[in-house]
């Protein structure tokens, strides 16, 4: 076994909200050509047929208001540019036209092509430059948040492609670990923000949950569980500590506050030397939020479910046989190579999370879906023979 895997005691996943790979990391292609980002030539037609090219003009807030549509029919349009024929091809040419439909404002619709310059995102940029970027991590479903988050918790969405309440028929990764004598924790930011998608677990398995303050304390005291899943703050609100800005980066929440939150999670692990040596942190986004990405989503292993026209809002049944739009994902550990990039030949999605955690902490688990069983795992990326002594640390 690689020494990094031998040392690995904790896996931490931070799942942010609604930003595409190109929007957040696309600019890094300029300094690292291995990253499959943007070179300025990527474009989409607007509703008048003019080509709208990508530009590094993304702002922290107020630009993507209203929230770009990312329900199943809208994402279908973004990927296939409105083509619903049987022979259609994923062109990634329908983003501007999709956003235009929300306001019929031509100039505003073009902002869906904007991306962040690297200097505006010092945290993500530093983490990408110092650790490992995935070139091909996709949302699990071409749809909205909750069905995608379900894949991170269960390895499937149980046939859901939307946001409705549903009660899973399978065991979450947290219950699997618990049953296997391992430990797991879901950390939500505070009670005002709470947890998304796993309300059924909050209701029936509250011992699996804690707040973000507890995560900070657990890191400091070396009490982190085998597996931790962290949720950012989903709203602007007040708590006993005062005003709290949303840190999830969901449009139109402030992206800089999300950067601070990512840095806070990283620092909490990095500040404890023993924890740093024995932890792998994955920062990943749940879905693209309707924002442009240039890589067509590939097909995937179906998980035995289907969603009919009533669920998809379109005139076809979705067989869960292709992925959603590409999202940012970075693996952080002192055991991964600096500036590493996972090649385009390896495709990951959110089912890779329970697959990886199960594989490392439990081993064989036959009750997972076929989709999860076929998902790529990522701990082989902890490939170094010796732990790195270089790293970064953030402060304000």
């Amino acid at each position, binding site marked *: 076994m690689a020494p990094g895997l031998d040392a690995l005691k904790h896996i931490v996943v931070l799942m942010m909200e609604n930003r595409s790979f190109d929007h957040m990391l696309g600019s890094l292609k300029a300094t690292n050509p291995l990253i499959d980002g943007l070179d300025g030539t990527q474009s989409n037609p607007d509703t008048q047929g003019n080509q709208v090219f990508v530009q590094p003009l993304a702002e922290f807030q107020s630009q993507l208001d209203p929230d770009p549509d990312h329900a199943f029919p809208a994402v279908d349009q973004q990927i296939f540019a409105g083509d619903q024929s049987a022979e259609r091809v994923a062109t990634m040419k329908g983003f501007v036209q999709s956003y235009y439909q929300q306001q019929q404002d031509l100039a505003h619709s073009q902002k869906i092509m904007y991306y962040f310059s690297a200097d505006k995102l010092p945290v993500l940029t530093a983490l990408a430059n110092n650790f490992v970027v995935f070139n091909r991590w996709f949302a699990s479903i071409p749809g909205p948040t909750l069905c995608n988050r379900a894949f991170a918790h269960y390895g499937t969405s149980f046939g859901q492609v939307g946001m409705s309440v549903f009660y899973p028929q399978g065991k979450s990764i947290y219950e699997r670990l618990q049953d296997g004598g391992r430990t797991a924790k879901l950390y939500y930011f505070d009670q005002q923000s709470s947890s998304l998608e796993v309300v059924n677990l909050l209701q029936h398995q509250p011992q699996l*949950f804690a707040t973000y303050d507890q995560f900070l304390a657990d890191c400091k005291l070396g009490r982190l569980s085998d597996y931790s899943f962290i949720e950012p703050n989903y709203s*602007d609100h007040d708590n006993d500590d005062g*005003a709290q800005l*949303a840190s999830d980066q*969901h449009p139109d929440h*402030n992206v800089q506050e999300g950067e601070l939150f990512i840095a806070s999670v990283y620092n909490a692990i990095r500040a404890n030397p023993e924890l740093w040596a024995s932890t792998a942190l994955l920062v990943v986004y749940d879905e693209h939020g309707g924002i442009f990405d240039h890589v067509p989503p590939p097909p995937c292993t179906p998980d035995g479910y289907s969603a009919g026209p009533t669920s998809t809002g379109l005139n076809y049944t979705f067989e869960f046989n292709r992925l959603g739009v590409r999202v940012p994902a970075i693996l952080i550990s002192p055991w991964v190579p600096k500036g590493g990039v996972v090649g385009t030949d390896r495709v990951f999605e959110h089912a890779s999370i329970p697959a990886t955690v199960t594989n490392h902490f439990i081993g064989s688990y036959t009750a997972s879906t076929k989709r999860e069983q076929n998902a790529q795992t990522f701990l082989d990326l902890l490939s170094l023979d010796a732990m790195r002594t270089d790293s970064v640390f953030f*402060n*304000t």
Partner: protein
Amino acid sequence: MNTVPNRTKHKAQGPRSMLAKERIPRLAGDVSYITIPNPSSSTMNSNRPVSSLIRSQLQHLQHAESARLPKEKRDGRRPEDIGTEAEAASYIAKITNLLHPQGRKRSRSRPPS
């Protein structure tokens, strides 16, 4: 090079506690210290209309509230009547406290005003 920035008297809580200069540990190895900006305080907008995401969260929590409490003890607010993030946070905190009281923030001692 391992250079530790000057320490200040700035005090922070929550996520910012991990970023405040006085909390920076002396780390072994070659550590690059990166200063990141704070968002402007004017960006706070708890009156922002709730997104479809928070609207779904409200519905899920109301579902849990209905399962947990008899009708006469429920909050009574309907998700569709909640308009702003502040209003949503208030309801979400109430139901989350019902489901997970361990998540209640301990009151911090504050100096008299």
